[in-house]
């Protein structure tokens, strides 16, 4: 069980209001990801849920019971910190057992659960090492192990993968997703990496300056971003925005078209421009096109085999059915 409900929660540090009134419901078993630019209040929101920070006003319900004034230890949540926050003087075994010892479980039960968590996370060979003798990914797994042995109502992750190298990150991402499938426990995951957000989430919460811009499934956000901010934030490379005459043709102040929804051709198309940079990723090629008369740069994603180079004049055709239209305030027009 782990249904978390925030009701007009606010948070101020001194005079600065970091989180304006915010409502959010996280359903039991859901994998929710908070994304947003740096400093938008993702960590603060997570710490409010954890109870590590006091909320300034509003209330937090966990499983229908008011948890606003419940101390962190009693909320039944487990948190994985960005710095892992392992206890350096304890062995891996003791680290994982720590919450169980604090809960005064008997030794046989502690051993059983620690062994269980260690085998799930492939840590069995490292149980007697100290955190200082582990690699980053192994430390990460110990931190997760320490969280899962408590069988919490929900897991809170604060950018858990940001200290890992790219390859390990992909691996850990899968492991966390698998863990979620297996445990089916509520997870709240903070990241600023939108690939993590898109691949892992059941539900993404996009934040900007403490305000929720949109909540929805990854594909919802990708297909129907509610405003310019979400449109620009979700999707990689970023959506192209075009204003002025071209937008007016569609009856909008701004239109947005994703790089993968533009067809490239040598000879003909709606728009034309000059390739300034082409990035070959093997599977795909990204062209940054200038001199289109529409926007500073138009980014286009094409097949990896398409071989235009710097200075080539090319023609672009947007797919008409996936053009996003926004009004002068930046809100989506259907």
């Amino acid at each position, binding site marked *: 069980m782990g249904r978390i409900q925030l009701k007009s929660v606010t948070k101020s540090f001194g005079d600065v209001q970091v989180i304006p009134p915010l409502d959010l419901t996280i359903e039991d078993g859901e994998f929710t990801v908070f994304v947003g630019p740096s400093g938008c209040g993702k960590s603060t929101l997570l710490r409010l849920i*954890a109870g590590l920070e006091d909320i300034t006003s509003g209330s937090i319900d966990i499983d229908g019971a008011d948890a606003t004034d419940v101390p962190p230890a009693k909320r039944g949540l487990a948190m994985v910190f960005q710095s892992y926050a392992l206890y350096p003087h304890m062995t891996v075994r003791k680290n994982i057992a720590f*919450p169980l010892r604090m809960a005064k479980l008997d030794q046989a039960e502690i051993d059983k659960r620690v062994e269980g968590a260690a085998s799930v996370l492939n840590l069995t060979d490292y149980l007697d090492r100290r955190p200082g003798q582990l690699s980053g990914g192994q430390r990460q797994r110990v931190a997760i192990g320490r969280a899962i042995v408590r069988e919490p109502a929900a897991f809170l992750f604060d950018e858990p993968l940001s200290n890992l190298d790219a390859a390990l990150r992909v691996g850990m991402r899968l492991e966390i997703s698998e863990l979620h499938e297996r445990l089916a426990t509520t997870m709240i995951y903070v990241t600023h990496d939108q690939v993590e957000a898109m691949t892992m989430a059941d539900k993404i919460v996009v934040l900007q300056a403490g305000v929720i811009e949109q909540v929805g499934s990854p594909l919802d956000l990708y297909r129907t971003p509610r405003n310019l901010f979400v449109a620009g934030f979700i999707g990689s490379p970023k959506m192209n925005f075009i204003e002025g005459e071209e937008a007016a043709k569609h009856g909008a102040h701004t239109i947005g078209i994703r790089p993968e929804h533009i067809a490239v051709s040598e000879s003909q198309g709606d728009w034309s421009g000059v390739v300034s940079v082409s990035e070959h990723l093997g599977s795909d090629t990204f062209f940054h096109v200038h001199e289109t008369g529409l926007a500073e740069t138009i980014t286009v994603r094409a097949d990896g085999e398409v071989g235009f180079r710097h200075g080539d004049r090319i023609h672009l055709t947007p797919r008409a059915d996936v053009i996003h239209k926004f009004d002068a305030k930046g809100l989506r027009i259907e």
Partner: protein
Amino acid sequence: MATQHSRSVARLMMAPAVVLLLGWMLVPLTMTLYFSFKKYLPLRGGDLGWVGFDNYIRFVSSSSFWPAVQATLTIVGGVLIITVILGVLLAMLLDQPMWGQGVVRILVIAPFFVMPTVSALVWKNMFMDPVNGLLAHLWRFFGAEPVSWLSEASMTSIIMIVSWQWLPFATLILLTAIQSLDSEQLEAAEMDGAPPLKRFFHIILPHLSRAITIVILIQTIFLLSIFAEIFVTTGGAFGTRTLTYLIFQRVLESQNVGLGSAGGVYAIILANIVAIFLMRIVGKNLDA
């Protein structure tokens, strides 16, 4: 680049310092050893020749030897316990955000800058004087009979004075150690269900163990040789005669340089035993 040439130049440049340091250490050490095997009474006949291990035997068999060793260890142990415990508590207090933190920290460090002689005199005359001392006034205020600290509770008094001097040192080292503790570790422990006291014993104290080790090692080395505090307060009376003070009395009061030197050699041996002992216990902490 450490070429052959530059290395020999370096050796040449370092030589004066090395020679000076060696002389600094070796000359007194050899002189102590030299005199310890002689009967040397400057005011009663001067150098009276070699006596073998006579001085050593006499120093140990004297009735004041074992009490002196005991007094030394009591003072060192007492001061260590007080400074480490109060140091940890003070360091945690000073680590809390509070108004006027900078000033308070400087005030806490202040006793360390007072010379031992001065601080002992201040304590003796201003606090512990049975007639005019502040403590006597305080006792009388509550209707109690003032304690004549230095004669009735002499050991406690000296431990108090020395602890007061060394508490800032312990606090300072422990404060820097506490500040290096990652606050996320404490938050993680909080979420793991550890109440404040458990957080202290499971997270903060282990984190401080290295700093405590350093405090204990350094203080022991200095505390074994405290002298001024005893000289200006009890003058070695009332059971406060430490090994250092006994040696001083043998050499200057009884004018027996040979006997004093033998005591000095014992002091060196004692200091080394304590050092090895401490290294054994706490050395593990430093490795980890």
